[in-house]
């Protein structure tokens, strides 16, 4: 019996996967998501890249050598550099603040910028300026042979920003990508489940299927098949994000940001498990496909809430108590908790507690949804209400 149970359920899973992967819309959605994710991986790398023209100030020391160093840095970073000689450091700083200057090379000691680059200075004009400025200093001070060996071990000048960069922006950026992805994946695959169940019901094919399948087999097969596709899509998207990020040296795939990606995948799994049967139950209540959107509104609102409010957390300082609370409500936790993790606002025990709440409520949700599904899937007539289905004696 158990063996047979899985044999039939596996057939349902395979059918779901085959039907979905044969649909053009699935591949179109996948490509769009891949492009979006690729953009998310590339944007931080681009943001940390160069501008086409820059005004560089030079202060103190050998003005000719400093000017040469600045022009050389511009050549390396393909930036048209205008060199301006500034009388002293104080006026250089004032001009940096006003935006009149983009960077200042202070003879042999440091590079000044308005704000340190969010994603690191490697490859930027300021970074190159620091390197070239460092070379110049070394070659002036030492015999060429010694200078070459010193230069090889790195001679970059320190870069000082006048105002500090925002903390952990890379992981915040990744957190936003993760929040969007969880929201999009759960809602799109959830809607597919609702529409699929509704289609089986309205076409009456479910009557034929249920002569050999038990409702719970059909339900299990459907959410598992869709889940497998969702996870395959997520794996492809996460893989694309990480691969592109590494290839471009994007800080979005380094350190804490990696942890956010991992947390995102785990919470997506939890969120899908929590929501998938509920979407199936919604599908069992409807008789026309047009009703699918209305029937799933109660399931979409919490996700939308968690996603929209994520912006206020990711791009502001501090987390409101309300959003913190959302991370412990099973309906919103799958989006809210990864966001808290991305901004570093969730200690480990909170993450564990939220996961435990989500898993426990998933058990309750699956039972409730399966009951609704079993009772409603063979009921014909108009659209059903949850209360009406639960009140009925099966």
């Amino acid at each position, binding site marked *: 019996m158990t063996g047979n149970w899985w044999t039939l359920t596996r057939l349902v899973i395979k059918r779901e996967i085959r039907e979905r992967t044969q649909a053009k819309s699935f591949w179109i959605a996948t490509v769009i998501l891949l492009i979006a994710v690729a953009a998310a991986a590339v944007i931080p790398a681009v943001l940390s890249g160069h501008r086409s023209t820059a005004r560089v100030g030079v202060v103190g020391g050998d003005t000719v050598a400093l000017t040469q160093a600045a022009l050389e840095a511009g050549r390396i970073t393909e930036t048209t550099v205008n060199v301006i000689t500034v009388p002293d450091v104080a006026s250089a700083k004032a001009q940096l603040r006003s935006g009149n200057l983009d960077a200042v090379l202070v003879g042999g000691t440091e590079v000044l910028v308005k704000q340190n680059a969010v994603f690191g200075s490697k490859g930027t004009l300021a970074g190159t300026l620091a390197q070239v400025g460092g070379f110049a200093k070394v070659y002036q001070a030492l015999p060429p042979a010694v200078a070459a060996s010193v230069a090889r071990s790195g001679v970059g000048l320190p870069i000082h920003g006048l105002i500090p960069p925002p903390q952990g922006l890379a992981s915040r950026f990744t957190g936003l990508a993760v929040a969007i992805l969880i929201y999009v994946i759960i809602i799109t695959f959830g809607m597919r489940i609702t529409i699929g169940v509704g289609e*089986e019901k309205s076409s009456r094919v479910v009557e*034929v299927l249920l002569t050999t399948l038990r409702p719970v087999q059909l339900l299990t097969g459907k959410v598992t098949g869709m889940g497998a596709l969702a996870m395959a899509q997520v794996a492809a998207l996460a893989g694309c994000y990480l691969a592109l990020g590494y290839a471009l040296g994007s800080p979005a795939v380094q350190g804490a940001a990696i942890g956010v990606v991992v947390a995102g995948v785990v919470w997506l799994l939890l969120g899908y498990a929590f929501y998938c049967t509920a979407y199936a139950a919604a599908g069992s209540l409807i008789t026309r496909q047009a009703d699918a959107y209305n029937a799933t509104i109660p399931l979409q609102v919490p996700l939308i809430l968690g996603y929209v409010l994520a912006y206020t957390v990711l791009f502001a300082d501090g987390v409101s108590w309300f959003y913190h609370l959302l991370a412990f409500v099973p309906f919103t936790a799958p989006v809210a908790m990864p966001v808290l993790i991305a901004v570093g606002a969730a200690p480990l025990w909170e993450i564990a507690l939220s996961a435990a709440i989500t898993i426990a409520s998933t058990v309750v949700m699956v039972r409730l949804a399966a009951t609704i599904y079993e009772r409603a899937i063979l009921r014909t007539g108009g659209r059903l209400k949850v209360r009406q289905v639960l009140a009925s004696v*099966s």
Partner: protein
Amino acid sequence: MGSQDGTLELTGLRRTYGEVVALDDLSFTVPPGQVFGFLGPNGAGKTTAMRAIVGVASLDSGTVRWNGEPIGPQARSRIGYMPEERGLYPAMRVFEQLEYLARLHGMGAAAAHAAARHWADRLGVGSRGEDKVEALSLGNQQRVQLAAALVHDPKLLVLDEPFSGLDPVGVDAMSEVLAERAAAGATMLFSSHQLDLVEHLCQSVAIIDHGRLVAHGSVAELGRAGKVRVSVRVAGDAAGRWAEHLGPAAQVESNTDGTVVVTLRDRADAQDVLDTARAAGPVEQFGFVRRRLSEVFRDAVGHAPQDEPKAVAAIGGSS
């Protein structure tokens, strides 16, 4: 009764939807190897009973047994069911769909592949096998639906209104397959609300009305039972005036352009009718008239099997 031979037994089926009684202590048996019609006006409870047989509707009380046992998961894989409102995935290809249903009924991959093609060919939709079901005409969709019910070589066929919506060619193809399956030993129950249209296809029938059994038995027996009737035509008597000389045992039921149908107390009186006719002139036609199934219905219920509003079907079932 109550045996391993494939007999389907319905005993005391009862189902109510609120105030509406869909099945009211319905009992009858379906022997294997016969084309068995399950007849009655729309709303009589046929669909509810059939859904209960295949396990997609529950009963308030009563039992369904097949081969002497309640129908469990094992037995269900050997049932072929065709629902009244057809049930196929609209966007799935014909072969794929048939294969899938065959596999759900326990067939291996290779056997399912072969059976899907066999039945699609057999029902004349083999050339459309790679098309999506929704791209087919309604008649062809119905052929696919029948193929779906037959693809796993079921031993019990439950077909809800298989003839509705079919063109004459489709009706012939469907009848042929039904007769062939019955001859192969399958137990078969098909429903129809058009009693006289399917009369000639059935060997036996169960006729129901308002969820109650009205008549049950072989079509031949049901046709013979009841009052004796003869149809007589006398040459040259286009008005059927000879019938005015009939005795009190004979009652004229109808007179259609001189063909007179007479109802008698028993078969012995038929000779008196023949003598009276002969006395009036040469008898062109003389024969016993079998009751049609609609007449069987009318004789039992007191009115013709008019279609009733589909209140029961609209309320539907619950698992």
